[in-house]
């Protein structure tokens, strides 16, 4: 079920009411990011940072294995008269750094895609004509029917009370 709001601040206030009503499967759509919306929606900390940390550590360990494995154990080779022990580590730092950044960046990118459910070519909200203005000058709040608290009557009442206009039920097809 979708509702349109006249301004970013109206949407912000409405989000707080929907949050306090206890809904979980809902989202807001606006043409630009709204400061403080995360808190107004009651969103917790995303798990993206944990995933990126994991990716970074994996990259670091990959570099350590690929560098120290051959240079210490498999095929020790004196290069440039540098010692074949832990003191060679300055030569390996750039690669450790690069692989850490590479893996962390890839993790961030793919985790972002997963979290957003992308790539996704179609969504039922596209059936609502007014919604195309979400990228122009419209502010929308959409509560999904799969939310355990969702009843059509209650959601409609809540959205209308919090100042929503054009409250519409959007169907799958």
């Amino acid at each position, binding site marked *: 079920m979708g509702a349109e709001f006249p301004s970013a601040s109206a949407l912000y206030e409405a989000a707080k009411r929907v949050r306090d009503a206890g809904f979980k499967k809902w989202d807001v759509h606006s043409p630009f990011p709204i*400061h*403080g919306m995360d*808190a*107004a929606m*009651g969103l917790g*900390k995303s798990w993206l*940072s944990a995933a990126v*940390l994991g990716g970074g550590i994996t990259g670091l360990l990959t570099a350590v294995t690929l560098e120290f494995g051959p240079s210490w154990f498999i095929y020790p080779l004196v290069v*440039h*008269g540098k010692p074949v022990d832990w003191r060679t580590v*300055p*030569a390996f*730092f*750039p690669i450790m750094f690069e692989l850490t950044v590479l893996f962390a960046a890839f993790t961030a990118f793919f985790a972002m895609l997963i979290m957003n459910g992308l790539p996704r070519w179609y969504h039922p909200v596209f059936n609502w004509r007014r919604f195309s203005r979400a990228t122009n000058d419209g502010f929308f709040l959409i509560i999904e029917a799969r939310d355990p608290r969702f009843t059509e009557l209650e959601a409609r009442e809540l959205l209308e009370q919090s100042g929503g206009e054009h409250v519409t039920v959007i169907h799958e097809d």
Partner: protein
Amino acid sequence: MSERSDIVPTPEGEFVEPTRFAPLSFLLALLGLGGLGLSVVGAFVSPHQFSFSWLFAFAFYFTMLAGCFFWIIVHHVVDAEWSVVVRRQLENLSLLLAVMVVFFIPIVIYRHHLYEWMNIPVGHDPVLDSKRGYLNWHFFLVRSIFYFFFFISATLLFRRFSIRQDRDGNPAYTINMRRLAFVALPIFALSLTFGAYDWLLGIDYHWFSTMWGVYIFAGAAGSSMSLLVLVITALRKAGYLKETVTVEHYHIMGKWMLAFCVFWAYIGFSQYMLIWYANMPEETEYFIRRNTESWNALSLFLVIGRFFVPFAILLLQGLKRKPHRLCLIAGWIVFMQMVDLYIVILPALHGKGVLVSVWDFMPLLGMGATLAFVFLWIVRRSSTFPNRDPRLLESLHLVN
């Protein structure tokens, strides 16, 4: 839920009462006089050791204060909003650069102990002779005077504009400061870079490193942000800036500390690795001295303490939002900046290993206490934050 704060500051600003820090000022005056007095004793008892200890203390304070000046310019150049509430303390701190002129006088007097190239007559060292165009006493003096002239006049101007705006709220001052900042930025870069070459690299006139200036700058910017965290927290503890500076500001300052922690490591490692890898005698000299004997242990301590430890801790988001814990890290980073400059300067004197002398501490204590004394005198001469800056409200309502 952290909703936006809706504090509206009083247009009168917030002033430190004149007698608020009187006992502390008295104590600092005693410490300052004591430290400087004992330094004078050191200058006569052990002039060679004194000159290096003095340069060490001078470089430590100078880099941090110059770093504060850097943050002011950057604030104006990028038209930053968040830093409006902390800007006045940066202005107060960088004004202390005027005091550093006085502390530069002993370096001029004891220059023959510090800078060996001043003692070698022409024709004795072909390497030095090829650098005479730059490394000569008159040009050295002219450059030093220029650096101080620039730093002091620019900090005075920024502070004057800022305080005048406190009185009449004229937004034209903001525009003027922005214009000034664009002029000051390149001159600042050149002054700090060549200042680092003249005063610190000049100890070892054979060695050269094109990354030297940016290395000193990286340490300066990171430690001055840490110093700002300490000063702001101290003022909040004393009962000022309570409503104006929030955890959001601490969060941003913590992020800058993290960023410059990484930047310092990046620059320091880039300088080290290229020299280590190429392994050319005329370049390795500097690092051989610092990576042998007990200096090696101190260098390793620097790498771990200045980069790995604060980096791992500052990565945590929650910590940056806890002022007192962030203060512990900030204090640690300031301490590591001191260790960094100790490793830059003192190995030239004690090549055989770390030898901490009692004279190392006197200039450090004397200068530090004097600067803190002058700071307490400056801090009460204006509002603790720019109370009529056009972007004050945005800064107050900052959300990360």
